[in-house]
């Protein structure tokens, strides 16, 4: 990262920032840019919310046919002698 970190460059580094994979110097430049840039700070916030929302995706329903098949397989397994 050059000493001038543009917005266009910053968005490319967001995952490395969140994964704590940036060097201390890059991290400092990243955070300094965020402090004075509302656009990038909103972008980072959007990214955090995207991750949170993806983490709630598993609250969804299974196809009824697949559920029935799985439960049938479970009953078969249960009925088998141990």
């Amino acid at each position, binding site marked *: 990262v050059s000493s001038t970190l*543009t917005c*266009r460059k910053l968005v490319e580094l967001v995952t*490395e920032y969140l994964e704590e*994979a940036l060097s201390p110097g890059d991290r400092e430049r990243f955070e300094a840019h965020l402090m004075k840039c509302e656009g990038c700070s909103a972008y980072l916030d959007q990214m955090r919310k995207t991750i949170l929302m993806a983490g709630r995706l598993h609250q969804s329903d299974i196809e009824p046919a697949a559920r029935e*098949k*799985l439960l049938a*397989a*479970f009953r078969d*397994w249960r009925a088998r002698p141990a």
Partner: protein
Amino acid sequence: MVEERADVAAQPDESGLIGRLRAGDEATFEALIDRYHNSLLRMARSYTRDAAVAEEMAQDTWIALLESLGRFEGRASLKTWLFRIFMNVARARARKESRTVPFSELTPAEENAKPGEGSTVEWHRFTPSWLPRFGGHWISTPGRWQDLPEEQALSSETRAIIASAIATLPDVQRAVITLRDVEGFEAEEVCNLLGVSSTNQRVLLHRARAKVRRALEPHVPGVTS
């Protein structure tokens, strides 16, 4: 309508859960399939375009899980165990079909990608880089998204947007974001499961998240100040 379900994965001590499963408690099994089946399907879709084959792979994973319950010692979480079994199912199928497991196979573009390069956000949202002092800045800055209500389920619209964004990702990106963000695995576990380096894991995750964010952007309500 999806009601708020207790997250079966969130239990710190899984021994009770395993015990109920071994005892043949159907409600416990049903909670598990509700929680994980769709993610298994998403993973399977990184192996095959065929919905019926994907469903079969997910089913095979559950059956293998039940059959291996006797060997489960609780050293790994049940979630880790389940996805390891899925990877074994995929590898076994790949052997039978004389092909390689695609999860760790990167496209040439991904292979050559370095962290920090690429087009996370469309280039036209920034001023041209050659502009002295003002190059590479936002032309229209991203809006502040509304805070997510604590622990509330996503609306079906939001869920559909995220699911379809993930479904259209390149295979390995879909596998990485499913494990990392949907299932909440640590980076290291994802590297182990998929057999990718930590740098590649990060590049893949970055691209996948960027695309999901872009899909969400027109839909998420902003903060009106």
